[in-house]
């Protein structure tokens, strides 16, 4: 127990502390960097907000590899028309941290465009990306759910994913394939990951699948983010005897398939775009998922353009490229080429050029996207990969 300090003790120390606080404030204010576009290539300040730690780290890290690849290519190109000045910020998968990231990029780094790896990062930016006072910037984000583009924000683009956009066609394609190849898929069980991405995929899949006919039924089982033992959910689903189990969280595919196999399930799986069959085969034996279907983006198809890109990616990172890599790459390229077309780094001008840029069949457009709605939705179409046997992956294009 101590005596209360007599008055005046340590006043000096306290004053010193106060001076330090003020000095720090003054110091901070001078660190903001400003830049001028020179005579050379356009200088585009680009923000990359991704979750390289936390529960969505896999998405964020994959996204960042793709984004870095695009930045390197653009900056190292001969007679480059644009020079990207990137600023990275880790959101840790927390929307509140994403807000801090966004404001940092906006006012410190003066970015006019931001790419974001998940909707946790993209959606919170919409509260301030159109502020003229703070600095406008375009947001190009990946988001399964409608929220990103339903708020009439004029400076947003939803790239990749986009469950409401691709699932109507996708479920029809799946049904068509099922009929043609006698897969017999009617009853579907969804393993619903209780996050924005998982929910969007689950609800859109259910809506579209049930619309196909009265024999098309859907049951779903919800699990919390971070779950590792899926047995209770799988047991409930298996009791309904499904023909197909829809997995809504790519990275969890291996664990879910393994545990469902242990529980005696021998049917098919539907695996989202974040997990490719070749990638999954490195984790669990192909035998465990023969007969399954995989969402397949244009970037994963065997077109010369995407094959070339995948080879380049592999030589750079010694990893097989997946859909999130291509999304990181494609979002940055889209922004850069819109800026080149607009001959400006102004956010509104970049956004205005984007619909035109997307119709150009350029090598960088590995997603093969060709239409951008006024709302900001990129029209996404996926194909299916059907795993017929250990060495026969059949690609089915829409």
């Amino acid at each position, binding site marked *: 127990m101590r005596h209360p300090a007599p008055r005046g003790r340590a006043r000096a120390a306290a004053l010193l502390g106060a001076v330090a606080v003020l000095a720090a404030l003054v110091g901070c204010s001078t660190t903001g960097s400003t830049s001028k576009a020179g005579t050379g290539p356009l200088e585009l300040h680009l923000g990359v907000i991704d979750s*390289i*730690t*936390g*529960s969505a*780290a*896999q998405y*964020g*890290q994959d996204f960042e590899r793709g984004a870095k690849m695009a930045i390197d290519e653009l900056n190292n190109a001969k007679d480059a028309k644009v020079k990207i000045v990137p600023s990275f910020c880790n959101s840790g998968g927390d929307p509140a941290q994403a807000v801090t990231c966004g404001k940092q990029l906006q006012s410190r780094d003066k970015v006019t465009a931001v790419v974001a790896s998940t909707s946790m990062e993209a959606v919170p930016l919409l509260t301030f990306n159109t502020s003229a006072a703070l600095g406008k910037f375009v947001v190009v984000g990946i988001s399964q759910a409608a929220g990103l583009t339903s708020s009439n924000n004029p400076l947003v683009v939803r790239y990749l994913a986009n469950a409401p956009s691709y699932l109507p066609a996708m479920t029809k394609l799946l049904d068509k394939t099922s009929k043609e190849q006698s897969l017999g898929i009617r009853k579907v069980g969804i393993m619903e990951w*209780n996050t924005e991405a998982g929910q969007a995929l689950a609800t859109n899949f259910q809506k579209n699948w049930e619309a196909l006919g009265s024999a098309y039924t859907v049951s779903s*089982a*919800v*699990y*919390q983010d*971070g*779950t*590792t*033992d899926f*047995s*209770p*959910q799988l*047991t*409930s689903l298996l*009791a309904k005897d499904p023909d197909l189990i829809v997995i809504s969280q790519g*990275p*969890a595919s*291996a*664990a879910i398939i*393994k*545990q469902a196999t*242990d*529980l*005696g399930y021998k049917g098919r799986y539907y695996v989202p775009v974040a997990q490719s069959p070749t990638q999954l085969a490195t*984790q*669990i034996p192909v035998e465990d998922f023969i007969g399954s279907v995989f969402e397949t983006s244009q970037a994963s198809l065997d077109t010369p353009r995407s094959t070339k890109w995948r080879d380049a990616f592999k030589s750079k990172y010694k990893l097989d490229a997946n859909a999130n890599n291509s999304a990181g790459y494609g979002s940055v390229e889209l922004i850069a080429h819109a800026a080149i077309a607009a001959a400006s780094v102004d956010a509104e001008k970049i956004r205005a050029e984007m619909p035109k840029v997307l119709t150009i069949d350029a090598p960088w457009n590995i997603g093969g996207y060709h239409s951008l709605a006024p709302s900001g939705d990129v029209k996404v179409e996926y194909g299916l990969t059907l795993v017929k046997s250990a060495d026969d992956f059949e690609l089915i294009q829409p």
Partner: protein
Amino acid sequence: MELLAQQMANGIVLGSIYGLLAICLVLIFGVLDIPQFALGAMAMLGGYVVFLLGPIVGYWVSLLAAMVAIGALGAVVQRLVFAPLRKAADVTVFVAAFGLVLIFQGLALVIFGPDPRQVPPSISGSLVIGGVHIAYHRLVIVGVVLAVFLALQWVLRSTRAGRVIRAVGQSTTGAQVVGIPTGRVAFAVMILGSALAGLAGGLLAPISQAMPLAGDSLTINAFIVIILAGMGSIGGALVAAYIVGLVESLGATYLSQDFSQLYSILLMLIVLLVKPSGLFGKKVSRV
């Protein structure tokens, strides 16, 4: 009926996993009074040890290695963090433990990356009885946990070391008065508890895969278990763990899945309201 039997089986397996971590907590939290919130993260590291060594030395040897490695980590943590904080307030120790969680998870992320790593089970395949499927590895888990429980029970009841540990658990000051080197006992108990956490992680890895956040949900459930049981006996903790496993598994089937974790929490709160010392705990003072 089949559904019920399958969910009961799932619940028992789940309960065994919670039970093993809860036993670690009874030792570290119950005896040493250290709210070791990083046990789940240490279990996760144990999973990575099995992931790394399993293909080289086989599952069982790698499991042993996980126990040794995580036990050693426990020793380091005790020496560097918890021993210096032994006079600090409970919550301060909580904070330090949470710092350890961030460090362990962060290191795992940087070293191994965010992708879940596959760990093959001790025995592959499933046992099928009357339509109920239980993977052999899950049966192994149930068996190992029971064996650990019985062994610990024997150590605590019948050996001198066990009596010393229980004496420290009753009262640190009392133990000091009768000449027990409490610091050394704490060290030993921390190593034992951590080694068991390593074992838990190694056992769980074939199910959960090795990934940085694998231990998160385990930790909180283990805490719920020992609060439900009442601090004190490892037998009580194990029984409470089975209850939590079953409640979670059955609740998810017959009630709503949105709330599977909520059922064990509600159960805990109801028990605490009726009997503030937990199901098997002795009466505690309320103020």
